[in-house]
């Protein structure tokens, strides 16, 4: 983990999908080594926003992104930046756990291997380390070399987290990462996030207000593709400035 100025600065980010204006003039600074929760009703552009942070929109020719996102003072949309480095730096945890079609071990080893870590010893050490970090080691240590598919959803999501961490990112992006999990698995993942914020900058998209209350140090509230309000969690929940925010917190719409 390098750099004291761990943070993300976004300047006039606009995203169009199929001609629809999804994100409108986003200007935002996200603090480092904290948990930032991006909240807002469904369809407000939260996921689109998150995907622009690791340039996943590159894979979809219908999406048009303009503006700048500075990660550690480097514009990730700069022409000279290699998208591979960006994605390695910004680990993404998807909404539904999606193990790759291989064994538990190979899933976690996937990142290190594609980023050319060759030593077998190093790889098994890495795999064990991150499986332990994700709190999954004890549950899978006897079936490392069998398929990841039979694991429970909660285990799969922790596996995906271990897999993401094994590429050694500096930022963790979670796209409603607990929405398909049961309450106990959700709690485990949430506790992990709290532990991880010591070393990582974490950005979570969620539509569950209570989850944001539990986890967030910083809140970004989005509505219809715009940022309505952003600020430290305490301030946001106790002293919201915008009427729309007050209504959302009060539960007038969701």
């Amino acid at each position, binding site marked *: 983990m390098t750099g004291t100025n761990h943070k993300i600065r976004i300047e006039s980010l606009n995203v169009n999908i199929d001609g629809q204006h999804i994100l409108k003039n986003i200007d935002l600074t996200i603090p480092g080594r904290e948990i930032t929760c991006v909240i807002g009703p469904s369809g407000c552009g939260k996921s689109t926003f998150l995907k622009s942070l690791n340039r996943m929109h590159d894979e979809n*020719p219908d999406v048009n992104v303009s503006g700048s996102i500075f990660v550690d003072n480097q514009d990730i949309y700069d022409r000279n930046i290699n998208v591979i480095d960006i994605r390695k730096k910004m680990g993404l945890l998807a909404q539904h756990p*999606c193990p*790759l079609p*291989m064994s538990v071990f190979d899933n976690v080893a996937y990142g290190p291997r*594609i980023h050319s870590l060759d030593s077998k010893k190093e790889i098994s050490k890495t795999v064990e380390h991150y499986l332990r970090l994700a709190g999954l080691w004890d549950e899978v240590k006897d079936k490392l070399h069998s*398929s990841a598919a039979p694991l429970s959803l909660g285990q799969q999501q922790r596996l995906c987290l271990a897999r*993401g961490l094994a590429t050694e990112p500096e930022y963790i992006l979670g796209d409603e990462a607990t929405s398909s999990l049961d309450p106990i698995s959700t709690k485990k993942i949430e506790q992990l996030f709290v532990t991880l914020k010591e070393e990582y900058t974490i950005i979570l998209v969620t539509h569950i207000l209570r989850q944001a209350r539990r986890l967030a140090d910083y809140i970004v509230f989005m509505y219809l593709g715009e940022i309505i309000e952003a600020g430290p969690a305490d301030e946001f929940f106790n002293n919201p400035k915008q009427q729309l925010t007050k209504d959302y917190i009060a539960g007038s719409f969701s």
Partner: protein
Amino acid sequence: MHRLRSIKERSARWFMRIIAYCSILFLIIIGIALFVKAFPAIKNNGLWELLTSARWRPSGGKFGFLPFIISTLYVSAIAIAIALPLSLLTAIYLNSYASKGIRRFFAPVIDLLSGIPPVIYGVWGTITIVPFIANYIAPHFSGQSSGYSVMAGGIVLAVMIIPLLVGLLVEIFNSIPKEMTDASFSLGATKLQTVKRVILRRSLPGIVAVTVLSVSRAFGETMAVLMVCGNSTLMPHSLLDACYPIPALIANNYGEMLSIPGYESALMLAAFLLFVIVFLFNGISRLTLNHLEKRFHF
């Protein structure tokens, strides 16, 4: 009212079940019928003699099937060796690299290509591939070849099954969930890494299955192969020799089989052999696939 509904439900189930079982029944009936017809040939010559002898002289009662079996396997192997890599690369390109416009253009073209009648491929092979082999390829090797050869058969067959393979492979690749490839991309994998480590790996059972399908198709392909293989009853010793796959043998001699004693039974045996070859091939690949599925985790 309730009774009537449940009767309908039950009779519908039985009706469909019977129809489904019929397809298997036909397979068994065909197998038995062929075997019964072929039995006199086996009784007169002995199965081992028929399978291992290379002497084919129907008028003398000599029916050695080895050249035909070898020809069938040889031509099909060449065809799949050419077609599979080309089809895989084409399908990967169409699935992972091509733009939407190109994909939209290719899909109907590939369907069209797989719908072209074999005889047209046969004619094309006779007027282009055969002379090409005779004039340009053969002189570099053995020297003399009419061009009607194992190689010609393999090439024409390959060109025929490529559209079939590409169409099926693209379907298989497209069935991979987007979340899975996205997971790979978001870990920083390049396209090529994702293709190799996720797409191909995940598709392996499907790739094996469509390969089996197209090889079975190649085994049975008659018209196109018959037109370019040379149909010589001698054993093919090189790619440039003429050969005589089993389907071509049956089609060419069906008309006169009744005029020579034992000929009919021998041709029925040829058909039965083809049947067994396809059957064995499918069975073996099924087993291999099961084994692969246990070894790797798709």
